[in-house]
């Protein structure tokens, strides 16, 4: 009985180590010279769903919060606040989708003056999403007058892949791109009680990308 418990424990630990692992890949590309001074601000804006982009709202919230924690060199204007101040010029259907769209928008004095007033130097466009690539297994639960329980094993593979394109609003150019891609397998083994062991790919991608952005400006 002691041996079987020992094997069971080893089995679970092995399962945990194998399953909870995730792989992170980060990339950085610099296109032009850049610098940011203390007091200047950046804004994160996700690409529009009108173009097929599906960046989740909670990922944008996570990125805003994570960047705030990771640096104190520059200010971060919350995405919703930015969209409200500049309504309707940075809405999903009206925001510039490509760097080539930027001059047309910045030709409007009222927008340019507001950006100067708020010292917003960089606009960071976020694209990407979390996708489930594959899933398998079976898990069934039942309950009766004497109690209930679950039995089975289910797993799925997630990939969270996001890219940030950094636009210099004063130069009207893209100064660089950073990206983070995290893949991981989540499992739920169940012997009476289901034990979810989740690969937190989205939150790992959020941390990875925010470190990339903070690192980009600290150089």
């Amino acid at each position: 009985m002691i041996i079987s418990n020992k094997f069971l424990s080893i089995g679970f630990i092995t399962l945990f180590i194998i399953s909870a692992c995730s792989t992170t890949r980060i990339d950085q590309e610099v296109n032009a010279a850049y610098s940011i001074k203390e007091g200047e601000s950046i804004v994160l804006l996700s690409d529009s769903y009108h173009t097929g982009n599906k960046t989740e709202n909670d990922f944008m919230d996570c990125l805003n919060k994570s960047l705030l924690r990771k640096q104190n060199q520059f200010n971060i204007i919350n995405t919703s606040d930015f969209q409200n101040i500049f309504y309707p010029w940075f809405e999903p259907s009206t925001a510039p989708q490509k760097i080539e769209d930027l001059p047309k928008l910045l030709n409007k004095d009222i927008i340019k003056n507001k950006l100067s007033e708020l010292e917003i130097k960089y606009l960071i466009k976020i694209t990407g999403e979390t996708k489930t690539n594959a899933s398998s297994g079976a898990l069934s639960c039942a309950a009766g007058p004497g109690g209930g329980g679950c039995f089975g094993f289910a797993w799925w593979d997630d990939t969270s892949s996001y890219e940030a394109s950094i636009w210099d609003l004063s130069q009207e150019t893209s100064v660089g791109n950073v990206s983070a891609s995290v893949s991981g397998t989540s499992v739920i083994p169940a012997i009476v009680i289901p034990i979810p062991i989740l690969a937190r790919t989205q939150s790992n991608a959020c941390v990875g990308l925010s470190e990339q952005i903070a690192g980009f400006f600290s150089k």
Partner: protein
Amino acid sequence: MKNKLILSIFIVVLCGCTSQSITISTSVPVPLVISNSDLRVISYFSDNVNNYLFTSEELEKTDNTWEINFEDTQKNIFTIILSSFFDNNSISDSFDNISDNSADLIMGFNLESFEFLTPQIASNNKYSIWIKYKINIYDQKKDLIQTWSITGYGEQLTESFEGNDAILNAINIALRDVGANLTIKLEKDMQELLNLMQ
């Protein structure tokens, strides 16, 4: 026995379909535009803009029936947009109550269509909303000078939303998009409107 049967049928009917009732109270920020203090603008709104109650039709019904009460949300959004462009802006009850030469520009708003897809209908994980308005624009003699079609689209993934929050958010996004599209249309076509008035 008969009473039991009726009771069972009543319970099945009661549980089998649910009615979702939601009230919209969206607003939009004041647009970042240059205002015009020279033009006198009067706007009027059709009944389905003043106080619109959407009830789902047979085709749109799946598990739920929907009742969406817009109250005066649409009217308030249009008023915010018009007030940001025109300092001298007022509202009339109807087109007939506007006297000749009392305004340089008269704008009439009518809701043409409101459509939505639920995750059940579309077999996906999002709510999608389309809204379309027809805007008639008249000069000071009350002659029709232009007709605009303004649309709005909003979609919201159901993940991380509870209850009716996802559809509410999709409607909010669509109405905000309507405001954005109207603002951009007004900004883009303002000069053309001024030329037509003359």
